C-alpha cells in the first residue's frame, strides 16, 4: 500500500488496540477485547477513505486511534509524516487543529448549556485563531458554510433538529481549520431526507476545503456514496480494501460479498442474489483462530481454520485478506474470471 508521491496524510502502521474488560480483584486476569488488530492504512490527502463493518468490528476505535484520542496498545500513527506518539504535549495540541472528529449522536455531542456560538467558538479561542469581534465573525462564516444562519449562534442546541445539530457539530470541527476529519457515523441518527442533506454538505466541504475524510459507517450505501476507497473491517482487522468501484464491482472476500448483497436496494427488480450469512459476529474477546470469518464462511478450507490470511494487495490497488479468493495480480489470467459465483451451486 504505497501512498501518493507526496506520501499519505495519515498513516497507520501495525495498529493494535486491546481493551481490558470485566472486574479484576487482586490481579485476577481480565478479558481482553481485541478491538483493533494489526491495521496498516494510508490515507491520501483529499481523499475519503470509508470504513464499513458491523458493530464491534473496531471501525470507531480505529478512527479514535488515528486522532490519538486513545492510545494504541501497539503500532503507530503518522500525520503528515510525523509520528503522533513522538510529539510533545504542546506539539500534539497544535496538531489537534489539523485533525477533528464529527460524532454520530448530534444530541449527545453538544453541550446543552452552551449557546451554539460558544460551541463553535471554543476551538477558535483555545487555538487563538481569532480574537474579539473576529471570533464572532468567524463563527458566522462557519455557520453560513454549513448551511445555518449567523443568528443561530445565540440559540441553544435543543432548539435545533437532528440534522441542524449535525451541522453545528461540523461547524465546530471546521472552526480550527482542520485538514483531516474523522466522521464517525455522522448521519446514522438522522432521518433519510435529512441524511442526504448532510451527506451532500460533507461532500461540498471536501471539494471546497480540500479535506481528507476517514468516514465510518455501518451503512454501506452511505459509505460508498462518499468514499474514494473503501475498507471492510471484520473483528478488528481490515479484510478488504480498494477503490470504491473496484470493491463494489469486484468484491473478493466472502464477507464483503455478503455485506454487499445484504444492502437493501430500493429496486424491487434489481435485487442481486442474496448471500445470507449464518450465525452472529463472534465476540472480539475470543476471536476464532485462523481467519476470524471462517465459522461463517461457505468457502472455508482447512487452512482458513488455522492460518490467518494477511491483507495482500493484487492489481488495481485492491487488497484482500483471504486464502480462497486473493486478488489476482494486474492482467493475470484469473483477473477477468473475477470473483467466484456469489452462492454455491
Amino acid at each position, binding site marked *: 500500500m504505497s501512498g501518493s508521491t507526496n506520501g499519505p496524510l495519515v498513516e497507520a502502521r501495525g495498529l493494535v488496540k486491546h481493551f481490558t474488560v470485566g472486574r479484576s480483584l487482586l490481579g485476577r486476569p481480565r478479558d481482553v477485547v481485541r478491538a483493533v488488530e494489526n491495521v496498516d492504512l494510508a490515507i491520501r490527502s483529499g481523499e475519503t477513505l470509508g470504513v464499513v463493518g458491523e458493530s464491534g468490528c473496531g471501525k470507531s476505535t480505529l478512527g479514535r486511534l488515528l486522532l490519538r484520542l486513545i492510545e494504541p496498545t501497539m503500532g503507530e500513527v503518522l500525520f503528515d509524516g510525523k509520528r503522533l506518539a513522538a510529539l510533545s504535549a504542546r506539539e500534539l495540541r497544535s496538531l489537534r487543529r489539523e485533525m477533528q472528529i464529527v460524532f454520530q449522536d448530534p444530541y449527545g455531542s453538544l453541550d446543552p448549556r452552551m449557546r451554539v456560538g460558544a460551541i463553535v467558538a471554543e476551538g477558535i479561542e483555545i487555538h487563538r485563531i481569532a480574537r474579539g469581534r473576529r471570533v464572532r465573525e468567524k463563527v458566522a462564516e462557519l455557520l453560513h458554510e454549513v448551511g445555518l444562519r449567523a443568528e443561530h449562534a445565540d440559540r441553544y442546541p435543543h432548539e435545533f433538529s437532528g440534522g441542524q445539530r449535525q451541522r453545528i457539530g461540523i461547524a465546530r470541527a471546521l472552526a480550527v481549520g482542520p485538514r483531516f476529519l474523522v466522521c464517525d457515523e455522522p448521519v446514522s441518527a438522522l432521518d433519510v*431526507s435529512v441524511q442526504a442533506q448532510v451527506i451532500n454538505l460533507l461532500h461540498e466541504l471536501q471539494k471546497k476545503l480540500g479535506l481528507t475524510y476517514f468516514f465510518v459507517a455501518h451503512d454501506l*450505501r452511505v459509505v460508498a456514496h462518499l468514499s474514494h476507497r473503501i475498507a471492510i473491517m471484520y473483528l478488528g482487522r481490515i479484510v478488504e480494501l480498494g477503490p470504491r468501484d473496484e470493491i463494489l464491482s469486484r468484491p473478493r472476500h466472502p464477507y464483503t460479498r455478503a455485506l454487499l448483497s*445484504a*444492502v437493501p436496494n430500493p429496486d424491487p427488480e*434489481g435485487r442481486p442474489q442474496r448471500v445470507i450469512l449464518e450465525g452472529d459476529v463472534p465476540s472480539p474477546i475470543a476471536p476464532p483462530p485462523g481467519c476470524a470469518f471462517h465459522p461463517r464462511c461457505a468457502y472455508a478450507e482447512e487452512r482458513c481454520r488455522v492460518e490467518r490470511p494477511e491483507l495482500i494487495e493484487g492489481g488495481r490497488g485492491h487488497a484482500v485478506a483471504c486464502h480462497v479468493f486473493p486478488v489476482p495480480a494486474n492482467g493475470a489470467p484469473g483477473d477477468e474470471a473475477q470473483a467466484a459465483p456469489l452462492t454455491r451451486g
Partner: protein
Amino acid sequence: MTVPGSVASAPGSERILEVRDLVVEFETERGVTRALDGVSLPLLRGQTLGLVGESGCGKSVTALAVLRLLGESARVVRGEIRFDGLSLLPLGEREMRALRGKRIAMIFQEPMTSLNPVFTVGDQIAEALRLHERMGKREAWARAVEMLRLVEIPEPERRASSYPHELSGGMRQRVMIAMAISCGPDLLIADEPTTALDVTIQAQILDLLRGLRSRLGMSMILITHDLGIVAAEADEVAIMYAGRVVERSPTRSLFDDPAHPYSAGLLASIPRLDLRTEQLASIPGVVPDPAHLPSGCRFRDRCANAQPRCAAEDPRLVEFAPGRLVACFFPVSERARVAAGNGAAE
C-alpha cells in the same frame, strides 16, 4: 378460539385489516397534538403492507392504534379499525386482550426492552401459550422449544433455558418473533424489526420473516424508514408524512413511478450502490412540528412543485390508477398528473 366475532372470518373477506379515516390525538404539555389525521389503510389477507415514513410521521402510532395500545394520553377522535370483519375500537379491554398476541401480534425494534430480563426465553414463550391456548406447563414448554426451532435458533432445547441477556441482538429478535407467532396470529405487525441490527443479521431476520409469512399464511404490516427493505419485502406500500398517508401503491409501481413529491424525494435521497451520482437528491428543510403544521398540504414547505393552491386546500388521497392513490395536486408521476388534469382528482 372463543374470540367474539371470529365467526366473521368467512371466506371472501378479502381484507384482513381495514383502517378507515383514523384520527388520533395526544394530550401533551403543549396542548393537544394530532398524530394521525384521517389515515386509511387496507391490508389484504396474506399480503405485506410496508408502512414508510420518517420520525413522527405516525407509522408507529397507527400500529399501536390497531393493537389499542396507545396509552392514557391518546384519544381516538374518529375512524374505524376493522380486523377480519370485527370492529376493534368498540371492543372491551378483555375482548381486546384475547385478540392481542393471539390473532394480532407485534414485534418491536429493540427486543431487549420487550423481553423480560428475569425469565428464560422458553418461559416467556410458554407463558403466552398457557394464557392464550390454555396449554399445560409441559406442553407449552415443548411448543416453545418448537417455536425456537421454527425461527431457526440453533440448539433450541438448550436455548429455551437462556435468559435474554445471554443472547445476541439477532437471536433476541428471533425469540421475539417466536413469541409473536407462537399462537399463530393472522396479522403480524413488525415495527422497525431490523433497525437495531447489523446488516448481515438484518438480512437473516428479513429472510426468516418472509419464510414464516408464507408458511404460516400471515398478513404483515412492516413499519420501516428504509425504502430499500420495503422494495424487497412488501406487496403494497403506504408512505406517511406528518400524520397522513400521502401515497399508497403496489410496491413495483411506487418504485417505478412515484407519484407524490415526497415519495420521489425519499427514493432519490437513498444513496445507491448501482448508480454513481455526485450530488444526492435531498429534500430541503425538516419534518414539520406537529404543533405547528402548515395549512393545506403539510409537505408544501419542502416541495418543489408547490403552488398557491397547496396552501389553500387540503389534498385528499385520490385513486389515479388501479390501486394507486396520491394526495397531491401536482404529482410528479405523469400518469397521476393526467388523471388530476382530467378532473379525476376531484
